[in-house]
Structure formats: C-alpha cells, structure tokens
C-alpha cells in the first residue's frame, strides 16, 4: 500500500468515525423535541450527549483538515465546488453548536423553543448535506481537465445524492434513538426504544434501496456484497435487540450499520476521490490529488503518535459518562 492509499483509507476511517460518533448526536438533536414530552424530557435527551458531542464533531474538522493536507486537490475542488452546500452546512453546524450551549442560559419558553428548533433543523441538515455531497462524489459531477468544478448549485442536487443524504439521515435517526434508549431510564427509555424499534426496519429497507442504486450507477450488477448484507441485517437485528431491552447490543448493531454504509461509499470511490461526469479522464484520483510523500510521511508520524492518545481519552470519557440519566435527575437539578 502506498502512503497516498493509506491516507485515503485513513480519511475514509475519519469520515466513518464522524458518522458513527456524531451520527448519534445528530439523531439525538433531531429527536429531542419528539421524544422529550416537556422541557425536562428534552433536557434529558440533550444531556445524554452533553459531554460528548463537541469532541465527536472534531472528527469532521479532522476529516476536512486531513483532506487539505493529504489531498489538497480533492479538498480544493470539493469545497469550492460544493460552495453553497458548504455555506448551508456551516450555518447548520453553527446553529446546532450554539443551541447546545445557549438553550439553557435563559429560563424562558420562547428562548428555549427557538434553540430547540435550531438544534432540530441543524441536526437534520448536517447529515443530509454531507450525505448529498458523498453521494455526488460517487455519482459524478461536471469537472474539467484542470480539476475545477464547472456546474452550479443545482447540479449538486441529483436524485442519487439526495437519496444518499436521506439514507444517512435515517441511519442517524435510528442510531440516535437507540443511543437515547441506552443512556436514559424511565419512560424516555421506553419511548426512544419504541422509536428505534419502529424506524430500524424502515432504515433497513431504505438502505437496501441505496445499495441497489449504488450498484446500478457503478455497473456492478444487482447482487449485494457481504459488507452491504451485514449492514442491512444489523439494522433488523437492532430492532429485535431493542425490543428485548438489550440496548447496548442494539447500539453496537446500529454502529456497525452506520460504519459499514459510510465505508462502502469510500470503497466504491477507490481509487478515485471525485468522479467527473464530463469525462472519466478528468476524474480526481488518489494519485492526481495527493500531496508529495514527504508531507504524507510527516502526517503519518503525527497520526501514529496522537491518534492512539485521542482514542484512549475518548474511550475514557465514554467510560466516565457510562451511567444512564433520568428525567428525575434532571428535574432535581434544574437550579443551574
């Protein structure tokens, strides 16, 4: 494996990490209004991810920055080509990030419902827009010989891209509902569990559709590969496990479904990084967008040292906040 291939793999893993970790935060953000009956319920839902979401979002920043350093051509074409979509994405991320911190800062229903709305909308838009972008990478966009995007905003909104976005949104919903069921007690746990149980099979069906469509555009025949089969089966298993009250295992299965779906996008792309619908000769590939090997070596050393440290303290954080929280706790605490 060349260093450039290794970095492609690493970037695929970082995007997967983002969707696995921030995926449930996004799901919780979308669902907190639906699942929490009153303010205390909504607060409880938000507080399941309170200590975690900020660190999880860093995976997105690292994905972007790693593309910048390791594949400057990819980063430059993608972020300038997806221009208005990135503006929207940033607006959604800003709205979401602000809502977490500011929602509880005033004891007024209209203040809180404003931030509830921003949190829900932002959390919905983020996976949708990134999903559209990832789908577009695979489906192909007008790109010319000098690696410049030549389309407009509307070229980004093609059916396959949109469907990839919807697929990721639904996966985030299931993942988030399962997480709330895992991290709460009382009836919030029951409501979230019921939602997860009902949406998981629906997500599995959407995922089957996405797999078929992906196979159709890449011309690989209709038979799914084992990775895709496992992703779909994992979602059915999630529904069954939640029903059994085994939320920990259910969360492991939604994690697997999410991870395998995102990884399969990148494995379909390989060895390209952006497909040109203008001509396959203009495809952006690992080879024609990568940084020189010295840069990749430096970055590899940095990752080898720091990624294990990051993973260790991230794991420790999840261990520290392993306990379920309850609406009663939150109510008892409402002084702060």
């Amino acid at each position, binding site marked *: 494996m060349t260093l450039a291939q290794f970095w492609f793999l690493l970037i695929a893993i970082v995007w997967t990490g983002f969707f696995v970790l921030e995926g449930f935060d996004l799901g919780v953000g979308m669902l907190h209004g639906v699942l929490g009956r009153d303010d205390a319920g909504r607060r409880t839902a938000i507080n399941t991810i309170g200590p975690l979401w900020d660190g999880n979002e860093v995976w997105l920043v*690292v994905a972007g920055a*790693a593309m910048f350093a*390791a594949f400057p051509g990819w*980063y430059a*074409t993608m972020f300038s080509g997806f221009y208005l979509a990135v503006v929207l994405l940033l607006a959604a991320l800003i709205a979401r*990030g602000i809502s977490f911190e500011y929602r509880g*800062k005033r004891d007024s229903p209209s203040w809180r419902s404003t931030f509830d709305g921003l949190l829900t909308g932002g959390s919905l838009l983020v996976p949708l827009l990134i999903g559209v972008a990832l789908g577009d990478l695979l489906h192909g966009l007008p790109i010319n010989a000098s690696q410049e995007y030549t389309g407009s905003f509307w070229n980004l909104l093609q059916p396959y891209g949109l469907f990839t976005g919807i697929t990721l949104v639904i996966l985030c919903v299931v993942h988030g509902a399962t997480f709330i069921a895992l991290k709460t007690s009382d009836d919030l746990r029951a409501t979230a569990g019921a939602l997860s149980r009902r949406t998981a099979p629906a997500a599995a069906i959407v995922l089957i559709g996405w797999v078929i469509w992906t196979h159709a555009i890449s011309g690989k025949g209709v038979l799914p590969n084992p990775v895709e089969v496992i992703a779909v089966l994992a979602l059915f298993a999630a529904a069954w496990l939640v029903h059994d009250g085994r939320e920990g295992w259910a969360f492991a299965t939604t994690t697997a479904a999410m991870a395998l779906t995102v990884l399969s996008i990148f494995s379909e792309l390989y060895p390209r990084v952006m497909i040109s619908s203008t001509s396959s000769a203009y495809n952006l590939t690992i080879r024609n967008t990568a940084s020189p090997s010295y840069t990749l070596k430096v970055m590899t050393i940095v990752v080898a040292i720091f990624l294990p440290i990051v993973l260790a303290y991230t794991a420790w954080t999840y261990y520290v*906040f392993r306990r379920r929280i309850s609406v009663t706790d939150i109510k008892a605490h409402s002084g*702060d």
Partner: protein
Amino acid sequence: MDKLDLARWQFAATSINHFFFVPVTIGLAFLTALLQTAWYRTTKPEYLRLTRFFGVLLVINVAVGVVTGLVQEFQFGMNWSAYSRLVGNIFGVPLAMEGLIAFFLESTFLGLWIFGWDKLPRGVHLATIWCVGAGTILSAMTILMAKSWMQHPVGYTMVRGKPQLNDIWAVMTNPVFLWGFTHVILDSIVTGCVVMLAVSAWQLRKGGASKEIFGRSARLSIGLLVPVLALDMFIGSELGVIEARYQPMKIAAAEAQWQTCQPCSFSLFQIGGGNNDHTPTQIIEVPHVLSILATNSWNGRVVGLTPLQNQYSAKYGPGNYVPNVFIQYWAMRGMAYVASLALLVGLWGLWLMRRKQVPTSRAFLWCATWMVIAPFLMNTAGWLLTESGRQPWAVQGIMLTKNGVSPSVTATDLWISVVGFGLIYTAIAVLDAVLMVRYGRRELTPAPALAAEDREAGEPARVPSVLY
C-alpha cells in the same frame, strides 16, 4: 466589488470576528484553571465559587469560538481553492495537526470538565480544565505555525513552480512563528485578565454580598495583567524586528516611510497619508524610535516603500507591492497606544492594591470596567497590522492573494455567503455579548452543598455537575 474583494472581505470579517473570541477563551481557560487550582490547594469555598462563575463565562465564549472556527477551517477550500491546491501540502499540515492534537483535547476535556464535577475525583477534575487550557494553546500554536509560513515561508523547495514541503522542523522553528506564538499567547492572557478584571470591577462597584470574593479575582487579574502585558509589549516589538527582516514592506508601511531613512524617527500622529499621499504631515516625531522598533539598533536603517517597490517590481515583475499604508500606520499605533493605556490602568491598579484601595476606588473601578473594550481593539489592530501588511501576497514571495481565489466560485456565490455569514456572525456576536454581560452581572452562586458521604470521608466536596 469583484470576487477577490468579496473573498478578502469575507476572510477578514470572519477572522477578525473569530479572533474576538479566541483570546478570551485562551485567557479565561488559563485563569479559570488557576482559580480551580487555588480551590484545590486551599479548599476555600470562595475559590470554588469564582471558578464556577468564570467557568460559565468561559463556556459561553468557547461555543462561539468553536463554531466560528469551523468556518475558518473550510473557508480555504471554498474561497481560496487555487491557494489550497498550491500550498495545501505545507499549509494543511499544521491545520491537520491542530485538529488531532488541539481540538480533540480541548473539546473532549471541556465536556469532561463541565459534566464531570460529580463524577471525577477532585484532582482529576482539576486536570481536565488544565487539559482544556493546553488544548486552546496548542490550537493557537498550530494555527500560528500555518499563518507564519504565509508571512515567511520556510522548509520547502520549488518543484515545477510549486512549493513542496521538505523540512517540517524549519516550519516548526520559523522565527516569525516562535515570536508570533508567544505574542499571541501573552496577549490572550492579557485579554482574559482584562475581562476578569472588568467583571470583578463591575461587581465591586455594584457592591452586594460577594464583594469580598470579587476583590480576590480583581487582585488576581491586576497582578497578572501588569507583568504579562509588559512582557507582551516587549515580545511584540521584537516580533516587529523579525518581521521587518523578512517583510520590510510591512514595517515601512507602518511608519508611512516612503523614502529610506537612517536613523529613523517615529511619528506619534499624522495628518493625511495613505497610498496616494507620500508626504503626510507627521506630528511629534520622536527621533531614533523607528530605528529601534524596526532593527533593534539606535541608528538602524529602514528602507522606504518607494525603493522597496522598485526592488520588488524588478524581482517579481510589474505590479503594486505596497500594502495599505493607512491601515498599517494606524493599526500599529492603535495597538500600541491602547496597550500602553491598559498598562497604565494596570499600574494604577497595582498601586491601589498596595494601599488596599481597589474595592473602594470608584474611579479605578469605572475605568477597569470600560477597559474591557481595550483587548478587542488591540487584537483587531494587531491582526490587521500583520495580515494586511502581508498584502498583496497570500504567501510572501510565492503567491499573490489575487491568484489564490477559487476559479469555480461565482460572485453571486460569494455575495450569498458574505451576506449569510455576515448575518449569522452578527447574530452570534450579539448573543455572546448579551450573555456574557448578563452572566457577568449575575450574583455569585452560593458554594454548592457537599454530598454527605464526601463530608464523612473528609473529602472537601463533590460538587454537582453543570448541565445543559
């Protein structure tokens, strides 16, 4: 306005806005960690109450710093794709390091700190706030490494007209970076001290039950402010010498010095000036001061803008290589004068501290409250001085800013994002300011009740956690 202007306006506006919040975060994280350390060592409840109080201000501010930082991260690819393509293999490296080394640390440990009060042993919980502080400093470190490379590119070779990284160590020991990083960190601590002092002064003026306690935070911030600011001003002037060596245009423009001089005097004010007025009226010229500021020697020579322009045209081809002289001249003075004023207020505070009169001197408390504006003026002026002074280059000597713009992005796209981000940034800046003032004026919350089992065990406190 054309694409270049729009992209530059957007970058300037978002960066300046981002840099309102970043120094507050770095400074307050450090000061909050100090307060919590004081509580850890003395177990006096007043330190705990102060930690919680300023911790809330820190968290309000971090949120805005983080989300505005996201835009910074993606903006290079969005508006400056030609730039990103050319130098990503160098400039991207410190950015990627920032994510991995700094952001994870800062974000993860901030979560642990906010929500971990009742879940972590006291010592471990104290360590989490220090990790947050370390994360903010590492973030400044990596970003200044990247930024300094634009000022003074090092550690690369040109391969087929493109710069390629060949020595990361040179990038990490770039003198512009080492001095610039020190300058920014000290400046951030100054910013944190001024904010803490302003809040404490307001609380002291108001009186109330927690007067005694805010006296402590006032003394802490004054005691730290004076030496750190003095050191910061020294480092800043040394940074000027370094930059004058690599970017002579920058320093010549900061004095509006069109002709070469030796020795060079420093004008306190000028009337007129700018890029089209080569003979502004200089008011109160202090001899030798510019020589010292630019070269560290009494009779140092400063090459003027006109000979530099001729030199650059011969080297890089025809073009205008003079930065905006008006901005340079006034940004430098704005920064230096406001810092001097802040130092004077700090010294006044020290003098009052010796006489134990800080809480009673209405005039001082009034000045200290309003001084909260000072660091924001200073930071913005400093940012303009260094970044506007780099123009017309994106990377000094390698790429002109006008060649860095994204070819595929249209002026309409840019208008949408300039207006969109303009509205969003204004809204969150207002929101942040309103919440900072609101929470800065709140009564100090009483010391949290200790959990019974902790008291029996002789442990000082398991403090209840903060929640969203």
